[in-house]
């Protein structure tokens, strides 16, 4: 996925580029802001992050100009202005979302993913398997050989994260933070409780030591 970033603040542009690249997006971030609409048309990105206060042409005008050229590429406005009128303005000019600074990185990534999902359809992976254990995100189950056990939402999210980093330790802190990103607001003790339950379910499948604990480090499958 290709994202075009129009942001004039140097630090923010640099960090935003790193953040998006870490999230596996391809990024174009110009440093001067003449003829942005032409530039965008040429680059034909999948999504545009547009700062409202740009030197020369404002983000709103750029969006209007894009829409006039019948460019339907989704636009997310980024701004430090918090007037409600601005937000309304952004939507009227054909923006798809509006995020105010200071934004939290996870929120930004979630909004980007949501807009892309809305405009492109779902391309996310729905099942994982590792060492013969299969996690099905749609059915919310975990299975091994012919046996299958149902999971709760929280258990599934925990396993999802472990499967994404299969073979590596995931720190408890990172696990908790990722769960918070997924709207599961638990503390350290609750995490232990959930992992214990998952272990019990894995035992039912006959995979006793599937999840390993390393004290002070975290969990690994």
């Amino acid at each position, binding site marked *: 996925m290709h994202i075009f970033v129009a942001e004039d603040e140097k630090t*923010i542009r640099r*960090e935003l580029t790193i953040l998006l690249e870490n999230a596996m997006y391809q990024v174009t971030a110009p440093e001067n802001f003449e003829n942005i609409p032409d530039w965008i048309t040429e680059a034909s990105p999948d999504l545009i992050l547009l700062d409202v206060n740009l030197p020369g042409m404002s983000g709103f005008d750029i969006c209007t100009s894009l829409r006039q050229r019948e460019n339907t590429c989704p636009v997310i406005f980024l701004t430090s202005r918090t007037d409600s009128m601005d937000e309304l303005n952004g939507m009227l000019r054909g923006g798809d979302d509006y995020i105010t*600074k*200071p934004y939290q990185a996870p929120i930004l990534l979630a909004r980007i993913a949501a807009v892309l999902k809305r405009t492109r359809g779902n391309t996310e992976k729905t099942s994982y398997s590792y060492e013969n254990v299969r996690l099905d995100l749609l059915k919310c189950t975990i299975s091994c050989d012919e046996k299958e056990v149902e999971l709760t939402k929280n258990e599934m999210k925990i396993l999802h994260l472990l499967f994404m980093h299969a073979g590596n330790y995931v720190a408890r802190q990172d696990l908790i933070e990722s769960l*918070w990103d997924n*709207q599961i*607001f638990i503390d350290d003790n609750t995490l232990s409780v959930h992992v214990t339950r998952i272990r019990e379910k894995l035992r039912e499948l006959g995979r006793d030591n599937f999840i390993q604990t390393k004290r002070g480090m975290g969990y690994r499958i």
Partner: protein
Amino acid sequence: MRWRDYWKDKALFLIFEGCCMAVTCIFLRLTGYEKGNVILLLLFWTLLLLLWMCREYMERRKYFKKTAEILEKMDQRYLLGELMPPSWRLEDRIYQNMIRRSNKSVIEKIRKLEAEQQEYKEYIESWVHEIKAPITGISLLCENGRKEETGAPERFRQISMENAKLENYVDMVLYYARSEQVYKDYLIQSCHLQEMVYDVLERNRFLLIRNGIRAEVNCDEDVFTDKKWLGFIVNQIVLNSVKYKRENSPCISFLAQKTTDHTCLIIEDNGMGIQEKDLPRIFEKGFTGENGRNQKKSTGIGLYLCKKLCDQLGLEIEAQSKAGSYTKIILQFPQNNYISEVR
């Protein structure tokens, strides 16, 4: 102007007239005037004097009554000088002129103060917008730094937390500056409470995780309000819960309840609670109470702002608590039956 006061005021003049009458009588009697004629003259003189003074009393009373009425009806009383009833009397005109001049200086002073305040407010707003760029920069730097292999994730988390505090203080300044004139900056729209709560929790992610706080969110309801302002209010409440949390397994729960004429958002924590004697005053400006004094980091502004913004948005805010056990803040959203029926 009262009858008695009027005569009291004229006492000196009456004494002078009395003296004049006495001197005239003595002079007339000495020059051989008849006693009867002198008495007649005196009576006539007194009658004329009384008539004149009554007339004057009526006229004065009418004038001041009218002025008082104008003053009563006026919105800005310092504008009286411009609206006083006309008078043929020299004295009145001199006073009116003086009042007018005095009022003018007051008006000038007020205008100047208003302009200064407006400028200050505008500066604060633009400052808030400016400072948000570096705050965003720091937040992104931390987020990227945390993920670097060689970095020190713990340090970046700490910086992130401090940055979030900074962000909240900056927000407080902005909302304080705006709290007088909400109408300029709100957008009432359908707001999903669950999403709004998620946003607030997300914003305070590091702080909450660090404090080992668990959150339960169960508020799948929509209300009509301004999302941003509501988010700010809920944020203050969450920050308070963190500040006054209990030591083992602290928890915050968000629950939405819908009844026929309103929707409630109930935010409950199991923290140290509020003393009963402090409870009625927690929304007052600058009130810190027992908890605030013990912790020494309360300013007494957070909840005051919440209350003020709630008033502006037409929400009810209420606190229930038991010291050492829980605190419950209830936000009540009026529900427009018309809108929900049309939908």
